[in-house]
């Protein structure tokens, strides 16, 4: 094996690792929640449905429609695991949603809600909230 072949092998290996890392959307419960909240405010149903449990899709659709009257952004969002309950991994978040309705801004704290997450088929999914 010469130098060129070794370099090529290492390059391919790095590419595979990077690709795998890029494809894994939700490496953790908090990733799933953050992805969902971002998709919800962006009105991106495809992305939102990609990170929710099949049984919770109907309510996830309500949440997307519930925020469709405003434009919004997330400020200071930082989510973390907060224990286990009934087979779910709980996630809580810091930060806030800043919602804009016809130029009028209002804020909603993210700290009041505990999200229920589960690992399904190797991916963390949001399955509800409390």
């Amino acid at each position: 094996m010469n130098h060129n072949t070794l370099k090529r092998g290492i390059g391919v290996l790095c590419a595979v690792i990077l690709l795998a890392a890029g494809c894994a959307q939700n490496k953790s419960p908090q990733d799933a929640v953050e992805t969902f909240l971002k998709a919800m405010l962006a009105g991106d149903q495809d992305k939102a449905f990609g990170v929710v449990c099949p049984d919770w899709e109907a309510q996830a659709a309500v949440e997307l429609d519930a925020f469709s009257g405003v434009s919004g952004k997330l400020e200071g969002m930082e989510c973390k695991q907060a224990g286990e309950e009934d087979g779910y991994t709980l996630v809580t978040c810091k930060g806030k949603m800043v919602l804009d309705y016809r130029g009028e801004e209002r804020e909603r704290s993210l700290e009041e809600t505990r999200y229920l997450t589960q690992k399904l088929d190797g991916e963390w999914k949001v399955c509800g909230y409390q």
Partner: protein
Amino acid sequence: MRVHALTIGVAFLAFMMLALSPTFSRHHSSLYAQDLAYWCTNLDVDVRACPHWQNCDIVIRYSANTLLPVIGTETGDREAGSDQWIKIEDPITQQQGYLHSTQAHECSPESWQTRPVIPAVSETAREIYARGLAAGNNPQAFSKVGDCQNVEAYFLSHFDAADQYDLGPYQTLQETISNFSGSFVRESAAVEAGYTVASALSPLWSDPVLCESDETPLACEDRLHNPSLVIISMETWNRTGKQPVSQYEDYLGQVVEFWIGQGVVPILATKADNKEGDGSINAAIVRVADHYAVPLWNFWLAAQSLPDHGFDPAWGDDFHLLWARSFYNNPERLRDGWPVRNLTALQALDAVWRGVKETE
């Protein structure tokens, strides 16, 4: 004998001609607007107290494309080859007046558009109310569910402050104001600017201070206020242009079902605007009201008869209503968007409250 038979025949023929004429068959005294014939104004027009151009007061002015209930026709001054004047009745004040027939044209509104401004009360509504009272609902409390057109700063709140309104010719409404004292000014947990109809079903929209974290705004409002009636007025939908009206209708149905389940009588409101372009949201609201046999407050019909159809020209968005306070001792207020919204909401509340009480 032959002369007598001829007289009877002529009389019968005359009666039939009269009975089949549009004027006769459409003229009636019912408050049910859908029974009337409707004409639409061609341009901005003045309605007169009699069918003449001179020596005849202007009683009301309408914007172009205003839908007006016609209660008859009359012969008067000739213009453009016609001496026919149409007699109309204002949907809000019931004031009657005359338009020359060339100033308007007969139009065919959609059925939802001609539903009465003030609702009738169904037997179903009475049953819901009775069930709710038996379960402990408060007969002196009503709630509001809605978006920015329902925030307390504009909607109904001044009826809880004696110096902030004058009922003028509508004094009979005072009893309803007294009964529901406190509910008018109260900040509902299910009203917020930026709401869509789905927001009322989303715990993420609940007030974190007042509501439990898993409570929808509807459940929270019901727990906090325990109403017997609820006004539901949801305007905003489809900001992104992606959501079908059928989805709005489905969500509104869920909202109505929630309240019916709690024994609370929903009063559904149509909206003044037509941001969707084809009136399909109002049509959906009426379908939901009909499906559940709950009262409908057709605010659209009232608003469209106002100058600029009730909207504030300063905003120029055909959405925001023209603001003025509720001093109905001044007839001018009955030509402004917000006073008419508040008056007709109060009239709707009054009609439903009196209607459902019949079971008490």
